[in-house]
């Protein structure tokens, strides 16, 4: 299973995962991680633990381009060929990820899910 990690400031990721559950019911393979009170080094350790060992692939969702979660995710993506990273997470994007991950090739998933995220933003 392709897994997801929602890595954000404070309790934002927890709220995203809770909301996904309220739409789709209890889900496997989606975890949240907060950067609260962590140094850059500790954030990397926590993210490595959340991503876990190499498998079918992991997509990290962060919220703020340039933020510490984004930076840590970019650093790990650089080291791991099985890790992808999307920033600017929204609920439309996460729901698409959960619904499409079983039927979409890992290499196509990021572009597809990002598209759903874009289409969820309307002026």
């Amino acid at each position, binding site marked *: 299973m392709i897994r997801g990690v929602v890595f954000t*400031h404070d309790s934002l990721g927890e709220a995203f995962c809770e909301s996904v559950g309220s739409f789709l019911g209890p889900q496997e393979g989606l975890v949240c991680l907060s950067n609260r*009170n*962590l*140094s*850059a*080094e*500790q*954030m990397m350790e926590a993210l490595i633990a959340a991503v876990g060992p190499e498998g079918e692939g992991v997509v990290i969702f962060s919220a*703020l*381009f*340039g*933020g*510490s979660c*984004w*930076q840590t995710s*970019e650093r790990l993506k*650089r080291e791991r060929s099985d890790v992808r990273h999307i920033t600017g997470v929204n609920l439309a994007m996460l729901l698409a990820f959960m619904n499409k991950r079983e039927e979409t090739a890992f290499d196509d998933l990021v572009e597809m899910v990002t598209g759903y995220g874009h289409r969820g933003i309307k002026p």
Partner: protein
Amino acid sequence: MSLLLVRIDDRLLHGQVTQGWGSVLKPDRFVVANDTAAGSDWEKEMYETTAPEGVLVSVLSLSETGDRIREWIEAEEGILLLIENPSDALTLYRAGLMFEVLNMGGLHHRDGRKRILPYVCLDSDDIVALEDLRDHGVMIECADVPNCERKDLFECLGSTASGI
């Protein structure tokens, strides 16, 4: 212009700095003074790509930071300087980069460090470097975000210092 803020933050340039302090102080340039980051083209480019619109980002080694900042200040730039830890702050000060206030913005927990505030943890080496700066007249002011209550680090430390 001048050094608008000299900040210790072990996350260096991140959202709290660009969005929080940056929107209040409106610097012309963020300077990341860090030998590790300055030694990696990838890290330098990463920080540079996160610059808010209209703001420059420079990633420098500690040894080149003082001279470059003086040049930019002479050129009327407002600078927000980011330093990873108290030891690096002392290194910059001893090399001639003068500042009157040092913002303690984020120094997180690790083995041997004791928590002073939710965002400030210190070990004995940190204290020694900060005491050195204080003895040179530098005010060490704790504030993670711009609109929080400013706290004097050594008042926060109180009797805790002897236990670190």
